[in-house]
């Protein structure tokens, strides 16, 4: 539980950070809150020669609303997501999800961007970003670009970030007023990653579901967007049959690992249970 030797760098600007990362090459790693990276280093599953800490870069932090878009800086902590009034008003599912990440100590240090860039299928925020249709802004030696969250995750710890690219902020289209939402997470204890979890956002009008979006956490080597499940709901009154169909559609796209949280068959079924329960809660919250 003792990491290998590394050098520590703390650039003050994004430009410096990008320059450092390209100079240091593949042996350098970005350090944000450290709560995914440092455990890997302690078990020597990662042994970077250099850590480039982003915490000295002021403009990577913060939450703002621009028109119908919400912009969250990558270095915003998971705690700050819970504390934010703007988020509570516009996209409360983010705070709800954040509260289910790890424990308070970790959320004080762990960042939103780190949770998204990490690429661990166990992270909770990525599936939510798929569900919300978020877009990631990244900056690298070649300049800046935008990547849709839905295109970002390629495999476990494998994302579309090129080496040396920094995730700077995330823009999230604000869901319609009166939308229903819920993040349901099954875990073994406080501080645990999900056995399975589901993020659900729906809108309702005259008792009918007018739109639905569903993301799934930790039931595949990437977060999943359950589009089939969502499609099974639109236009329905979320009656038993439609919900059953959605649950089934969510279950079939999962391919979880068997681990100490349970065998794959269990985790697939739990993805279904989480979808069902999230839908129930989302429906109860939806206006219209």
């Amino acid at each position: 539980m003792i990491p290998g030797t590394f050098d520590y760098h703390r650039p003050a600007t994004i430009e410096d950070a990008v320059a450092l990362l390209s100079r240091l090459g593949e042996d350098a790693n970005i350090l944000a809150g450290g709560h995914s990276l440092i455990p890997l280093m302690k078990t020597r599953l990662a042994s970077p020669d250099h850590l480039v800490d982003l915490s000295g870069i002021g403009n990577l932090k913060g939450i703002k609303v621009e028109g119908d878009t919400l912009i969250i800086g990558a270095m915003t902590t998971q705690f700050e997501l819970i504390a934010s009034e703007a988020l509570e008003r516009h996209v409360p599912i983010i705070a709800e999800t954040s509260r289910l990440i790890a424990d308070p100590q970790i959320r004080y240090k762990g960042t939103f961007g780190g949770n998204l860039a990490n690429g661990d299928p166990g992270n909770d925020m990525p599936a939510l970003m798929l569900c919300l249709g978020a877009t990631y802004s990244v900056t690298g030696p070649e300049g800046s670009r935008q990547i849709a969250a839905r295109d970002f995750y390629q495999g476990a710890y494998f994302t579309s970030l090129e080496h040396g690219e920094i995730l700077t902020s995330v823009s999230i289209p604000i869901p319609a007023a009166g939308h229903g939402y819920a993040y349901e997470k099954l875990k073994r204890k406080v501080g645990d990653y999900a056995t399975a979890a589901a993020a659900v956002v729906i809108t309702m009008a005259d008792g009918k579901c007018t739109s639905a979006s569903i993301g799934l956490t930790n039931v595949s080597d990437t977060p999943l967007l359950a589009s089939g499940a969502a499609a099974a709901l639109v236009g329905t009154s979320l009656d038993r049959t439609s919900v059953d169909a959605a649950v089934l559609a969510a279950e079939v796209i999962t391919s979880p690992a068997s681990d100490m949280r349970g065998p794959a068959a269990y985790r697939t079924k739990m993805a279904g249970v989480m979808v069902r329960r999230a839908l129930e809660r989302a429906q109860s919250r939806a206006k219209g």
Partner: protein
Amino acid sequence: MNDQTKIDQDRAERTEKLQGMGCKRKRVEDVRFTQGKGSYVDDLKLPGMLFGDFVRSPHAHARIKSIDTSRAKALPGVVAVLTAADLKPLGLHYMPTLAGDVQAVLAEEKVLFQNQEVAFVIAEDRYIASDATELVDVEYEALPCIVDPFKSMLPDAPILREDIQDKMEGAHGPRKHPNHIFEWKIGDKEATDAVFANADVTIKEMLVDHRTHPSPLETCQSVASFDKVKGELTLWGTFQAPHVIRTVVSLISGLPEHKIHVIAPDIGGGFGNKVGAYAGYVCSVVGSIVLGVPVKWVEDRMENLSATSFARDYHMTTELAATKDGRIQAMRVHVLADHGAFDACADPSKWPAGFMNICTGSYDIPTAHLAVDGVYTNKASGGVAYRCSFRVTEAAFAIERAVELLAQKLGMDAAELRIKNFIKPEQFPYQSALGWEYDSGDYHTAMKKAMDTIGYTELREEQAKKREAFKRGETRELMGIGISFFTEIVGAGPAKNCDILGIAMFDSAEIRIHPTGSVIARMGTKSQGQGHETTYAQIIATEIGIPADDIMVEEGNTDTAPYGLGTYGSRSTPVAGAATAVAARKIKAKAQMIAAHMMEVHEGDLEWDVDRFRVKGLPEKFKTMKEIAWAAYNAPPPNMEPGLEAVNYYEPPNMTYPFGAYFCVMDIDVDTGVAKTRRFYALDDCGTRINPMIIEGQVHGGLTEAFACAMGQEIRYDEQGNVMGASFMDFFLPTAVETPHWETDHTVTPSPHHPIGAKGVGESPHVGGVPCFSNAVNDAYAFLGAGHIQMPHDAWRLWTVGEKLGLHT
């Protein structure tokens, strides 16, 4: 106010000032613990101290073809790298275990479990040591491994312990197979078989008490410092039994025992994990002897969970025979005990299966037979008593699950069946079929109090309604009611049946009263969080009338403490607590003589009054203990030695038998398998209660560990012998969020043979808690025909039960 009231009031005030037995005295040790001022092994920093770290085996079973340490030695800051080749000339590549086996310190020709110690790197700091472990090149040839104990004794099983391959006589008799350790049998087999052959009703079930780990928050660690000039070794370490460690170190190192100073400073939990001797201790000692500077070894969490002593892994085929109306006539148990790669159980010498023969529990079972086979597998060694006396959690689990299964088969209420078979109050002292003499008990009173308090009848009614509602599809929750009525056996123990390495299992207290009337008491036990500094002082306070706040209790330094066998198996209060009372009484007897001399009366004219001797009939004529202490040093009676102190080595005449009635109400979500404990009620009878607050704390802790073990905690291996989940991410250590609310209660049945009637309590909640939780889970599914559900009862396993029962549409 009349005179008598005044006297009573005065006496009450003086009694209260003492903070003696029965009062909720705050724990004195918490002043330093809550300020982060405790002093643990890892806090120790000595000049020139080096750090050791292990190279461990990635394989469960492999031959070591070569070890090349040259790259590691070349790393700047690395001082030495020890391998078996270095230890062998010293005869230290193996060390004796407490169970009569030997255990590799550093693997020589083979590794026998994953994470076994292969080389020990010593470097200037922890980081370099850790880096260097990656530079030791070990070439292995993987061998087929045994993970399932049921495969250990197959004819074609790979032989694990080549070092003792030809030794077909083990420490406990003949071995049936090279992978067999011992067979231990007790009871009347013929009579038992005969009862079974003719019984109205029998049950038989394989009850598995799975492999888990005591997981104290502070891991195992040591600092060895050898003074080459004086030829003396000082060894600080996380030792539950420091004197035993001193003797073991002397025996294996050849250093004379008086030149070994073993010190156990504050310890952050032990739960059985810190009783045995570990490779890390030996390597830090050898390192320091060779290098002449202090060497520190600190285990990390993964090492602790995967390499130092595990607990349980008992596979118990349990049978009961009964009459139609529910009188239990016989019990038959066969245990397959997985001890891992070495037999490093920490049991008294003659008890290779600990006190498993307490498995007849709280019931008057006239005939019984128990047989235990211990086997080797490619897993870490151990089998220690995790918050229980030796194998007592296993025993309680066997009988308490079996009774439930019998109740189910008889169609009888599980509480009623228990009451029907309880040993009756008038049967004590009770001779059990498997050889114990239960000292005391009043099970009926305890059970009735528990059932009334929890509202047992109403709970069963509610459950019946819930079951109907479940069948009608109105709820997806199952309600379970768990019961456990356990009897512990603690306080090892009488010399006639208990010793460790030939040393009888007495314990000791040395009490010195200083001239000004304050006290130092030194004990042979060692607290790991139990609050000894608080409770022993309370015993002394009541016995000799000096306020507990004026009494300092010291443990853990083998130079100053009298020899003792340490703290585990709830033995501190039953054994050292008794020694404390006896030593205090010796002091009191001498004090009485001094007081008589001071007041110029005959000793027999004096009577004890809380904190003083007074002349009978003349209440105003008295000498306080404080005054007597001064006189003991200042003007002792002629022909009497000055001073006021006493030592007692107490050899208990019998064990003590705490018991308790536990009830658990659980609600299980069948769709996720998540179980919620709605209520947990624990009634404990530990005899005389020294400090009710400490008892409550011990019960809370023990129940929490019971909850953990029953509901998810496990050390699992895959088929290749890879240890899984050896970190707190997977290993279930409940936080305040998961832990149920505990309701505690008590009855008091003092031990008739213990000087103050106390029995020990720290482990009862664990022993009684594990079967109670498991019974609640089993009870929830029983009406659906689930059969016995094995622990641990984590969510996915319970979901699997529901899946098999077709509950998930």
